[in-house]
C-alpha cells in the first residue's frame, strides 16, 4: 500500500536526516529546496513499505556522490538523479518498481524523493545504512554480500557512464569515485539494482519514518521551548555522552576524505573533562580524556545544545556549545559482518567495537 508523503514532512525529514548523518552526508538544504519546488509544481512522492515489495520487484538505489563543497556551487538537479535511474532501466531492459536512497543520513536521504517525484515512482521506506558512511562498501547490501554492479553515473554535461562489472564493493567504490572526480567531483548515481527480496532481507527498514519523526520531535520541542537535545534522546533511545564547548578543530584531507578531530571541553556534569571526537567525513570515535567511550557503528551525533540541530564535520567550529549523543545503530551493523565493514577498524582505529548500549 502506498502512502503520500505530505509537504509538511519535508522539513522534519531534512532535520532528522541531518542528525542521522552523524556529521557527514552533506547538509540537506539544497535538496530540500529542490524537493519543495517539485512539490510546488504539483508533484508528490508516495512511500512504499519495504515489506509490500514483491520478491521480483526491481528497486533503484540512488545517491548524489561527490564533495559537499562542489555541491554548494554546482547545485544538484533532480533531473540528473532521474536520468541515472532511467539509464539503468535502459541498461537492464526492465522498469523499477520503486526507488530508495543509499543513506538516510544527510542530503542523500532526499535523493530518492527527488528521483521519485520526477519519475512518479514510490520511495521505499528504507535505506542501506541507517545513517551516513563515506564509502560504497559500507552498506547493508555490501555486508549482505550482494552483487555490487552495475552502476550508472550521470554528469550534468551529458556524460554518462555505466560500470558494468567490478570485482568487489571496494573496486566499485574506487572506479566510481575516479569517474566522479573526473567530472568535477559531483555526479548522480544509481547503484546496483536490488530486488524486492534483497531489500526485504538486507535493507535498513523504516528509516524514512524514523528520520521524519526524529526531525518532527526536534522541531516540536523547539516550538514548545523544551530541550530539543532531550527530544532526540527520548525519540531514539539515545545516550548523552558529553556536553560542552568546542575548543579545537583539526582537519586534514587524506585519501580523499576529510579527517580530523574536534575537541570539546566539558561543562555542567562534564566539567573538568575533555571529549575528542575523531572524524572521517562522519564522526567515528569519541575519546573521553583519552579513552575511547563510543564508536561507529553506534551513531555519534554532535548537536547544537540550544537548537538540537546537527553540526557537520565541515561546519563545526570553535566556540560552539554542543552536546554529543550516541544513538543505537541498526542491528545489522553491529553483527560481526557489520563490525568488519563499518566498525572502528574499518576507519583505521585499532580498537574493538564496544557499544554504549
Amino acid at each position, binding site marked *: 500500500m502506498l502512502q503520500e508523503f505530505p509537504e509538511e514532512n519535508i522539513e522534519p525529514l531534512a532535520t532528522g536526516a541531518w542528525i542521522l548523518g552523524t556529521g557527514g552526508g552533506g547538509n540537506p538544504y539544497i535538496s530540500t529546496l529542490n524537493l519543495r519546488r517539485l512539490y510546488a509544481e504539483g508533484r508528490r512522492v508516495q512511500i512504499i513499505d519495504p515489506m509490500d515489495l514483491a520478491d521480483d520487484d526491481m528497486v533503484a538505489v540512488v545517491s548524489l556522490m561527490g564533495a559537499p563543497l*562542489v555541491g554548494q*556551487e554546482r*547545485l544538484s538537479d533532480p533531473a540528473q538523479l532521474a536520468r541515472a535511474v532511467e539509464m539503468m532501466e535502459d541498461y537492464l531492459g526492465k522498469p523499477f518498481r520503486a526507488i530508495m536512497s543509499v543513506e538516510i543520513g544527510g542530503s542523500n536521504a532526499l535523493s530518492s524523493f527527488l528521483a521519485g517525484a520526477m519519475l512518479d515512482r514510490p520511495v521505499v521506506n528504507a535505506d542501506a545504512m541507517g545513517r551516513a558512511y563515506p564509502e560504497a562498501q559500507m552498506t547493508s547490501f555490501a555486508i549482505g554480500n550482494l552483487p555490487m554492479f552495475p552502476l550508472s553515473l550521470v554528469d550534468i554535461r551529458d556524460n554518462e557512464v555505466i560500470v558494468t562489472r567490478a570485482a568487489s564493493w571496494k573496486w566499485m567504490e574506487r572506479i566510481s569515485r575516479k569517474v566522479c572526480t573526473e567530472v*568535477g*567531483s559531483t555526479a548522480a548515481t544509481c547503484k546496483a539494482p536490488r530486488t524486492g527480496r534483497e531489500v526485504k532481507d538486507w535493507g535498513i527498514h523504516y528509516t524514512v519514518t524514523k528520520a521524519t519523526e526524529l526531525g518532527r520531535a526536534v522541531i516540536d520541542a523547539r516550538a514548545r521551548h523544551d530541550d530539543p537535545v532531550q527530544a532526540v534522546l527520548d525519540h531514539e533511545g539515545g545516550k548523552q555522552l558529553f556536553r560542552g564547548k568546542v575548543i579545537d578543530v583539526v582537519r586534514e584531507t587524506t585519501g580523499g576524505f576529510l579527517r580530523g578531530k574536534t575537541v570539546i571541553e566539558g561543562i555542567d556534569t562534564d566539567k573538568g573533562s575533555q571529549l575528542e571526537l575523531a572524524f572521517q567525513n562522519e564522526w567515528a570515535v569519541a575519546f573521553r580524556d583519552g579513552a575511547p567511550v563510543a564508536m561507529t557503528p553506534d551513531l555519534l551525533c554532535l548537536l547544537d545544545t540550544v537548537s538540537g540541530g546537527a553540526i557537520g564535520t565541515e561546519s563545526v*567550529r570553535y566556540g560552539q556549545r554542543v552536546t554529543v549523543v550516541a544513538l543505537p545503530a541498526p542491528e545489522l551493523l553491529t553483527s560481526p559482518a557489520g563490525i568488519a565493514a563499518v566498525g572502528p577498524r574499518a576507519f583505521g582505529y585499532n580498537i574493538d567495537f564496544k557499544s554504549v548500549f
Partner: protein
Amino acid sequence: MKRIGIDVGGTNTDAVLIDGDTILSSIKVPTTQDVMSGVKAALGHVSGQIGPSDRPIDAVMIGTTHFTNAVVERARLERVAAIRIALPSGSSLPPMCDWPDDLRAAVDPLIFMVHGGHEYDGSPLVPMIPDEIREAAMKIRDAGITSIAISAVFSPLTTECEVRAAEIVRSIIPSARITLSHTLGRIGLLERENVALLNAALQSLGKTTVQAFSDALREASISAPFFLTQNDGTVALADVAASNPVHSFASGPTNSMRGATFLTGLSDAMVIDVGGTTSDIGCLVGGFPREANNIVHVGGVRTLFRMPDLLPIALGGGTIIDPHTGKIGPRSVGYRILSEACVFGGDTLTTSDVAVAAGLIDMGDRDLVKDLDPAFVAASLARIRDMVADSFDQMKTSSDDVPLIAVGGGAFLIPERIGGASEVLRVENAGVANALGAAMAQVSGEVDQVFSGVSRDEALSTAEAEAQNAAIASGASRESLKTLEVEDIPIAYLPGGARRVRVRVIGDIAFN
C-alpha cells in the same frame, strides 16, 4: 589627525570629534524620520567646536543602518536583473529561489540563466556563450533595468566568466551598475548570489545616501574625504562603499566593538553592546570583530559573506519582566520606555526598573519602584546575570578568563562579576562607543579562495599578496598593512591537496 565619527542607529544618531586619541566633542541626538536632519544636527554640534583658525577635519567616518533597514522594510529597493552563468547546472534552483516572497516582489527581478562557469580546479564547466549574455542584456535594457547582479559557478576561484559577462552587458547598457558575486561572497553559489542581488537592489539607495551625506558635510563646511564603515570594522571611501551597500549591513554593532577597543585599549576581549531591546555579544580579536564563518540571514535571505560573528540576546534596557513568574523577555517596550516603564510612570515592569530599584542606575523616579520586593529584584538581577554569562561563555574562544567590555545605553544591566570573565569593564563614553568606533576605523582587504595543485605555503603567500592588493585598492597605505587572520581548510574528496584559504589584512588610511 582630526576625525569625525558618526553612527546612525535605529534610535540615536551619535557623533564624536577626535584628535588623535583625544575626544574633543561628542553628541547623541534622536534619529529623525528623514535620517539626514539628525545627522546634520549631530554634525553641526561637533563641527561647531572647531574654530576658524583650528586645523581642519582630516576625515569623516559614517556608519549607517540605511541599507539594512531598506532590506528589512522591503522599501527603497530597486528593480534588478540576475544573470547566472552556470548552465547546464543549477537550473532547478534559479536565482532568488529561497527569498521570502515579499522581498522578492519588492525587487521584482528579471532572471536569466546562461551557459558557462568553472570547476573547482579552474577548468571550464562548459564554454560561456557570449550571445546568450548579449540577448539577456538586450532584454534587461528593454525592461529599463540598470542594476544587474552576475554570478557564475566557482567564480571565487575563477572570476573570468563574471568579468567577461560584465563587459558584454556594459557594451549594451553603458550606464549599467553591475555587481559581480565574486567581489562580495564566498563559496556557496546561492548565498553568494543572494548577497550580489541584495547589493544590486541597493545601488540607487547607496548613491542617494552617499550624496545626502556629502550634501550634509558641505553644509557644515567640511571638505574632508568621507568614508562609510564596513561590516568588518574597517572603512571604505564613500564612493567605493556606495557601490557595495551590503558591506555596511552590520556596521552598527561593529562600530560599537571597535569603540570598545578604543575606550579600553584592549584589543582581545569580548564586548556586549546593550541596547533597548536586544544585546549583541561579539568577540574582539586583535582589535577587530571576529568574523562569522557561517550563514547569516539578512531580512530573511541566506547570505555568506563578510559579517561579524554576533550572538544576539533578548536583553535590553526596555526588556519586560513578568511580575508573576519573574521571566525576563523576550518582549521589550523598546523606545516607549520613557512612557511605559514603571520609573517613568508607566505600568510595565522592565529591566531598567529593577536596575533602578537595586541602585545600579539613577533614572526616572526611584520612588515609583520602592515597593518592589527586594528578593524579586535580586532574583531578576541573578537571572540577567545568568543570561549574560551563558551567552558570554558561548562566544568565548578560549577557556581562559577574558575581559568583558559593556557598552551601549543599557550597559548598567551587566553585572560587575561574570563567570569566565577576568573583569567586566563599563566604560566612560560607552554610549557613543559606536561613533568612536567609526572615527578610528582602518582599511582592510580580504581573500577567500580555493587553491589546488600548489603547496600550502604557496597558497598562503599568494592569498596574502592578493589581500594586500585589495586593501590598497580600498585606500590603505602599503607600509601600514598587517595580516589579521589566516585560515586554511583542506577540502574533502578533492584531489591535488585542495584547500580553502582565507586571509585578511588591515592598514591605516593613506592620505595623499
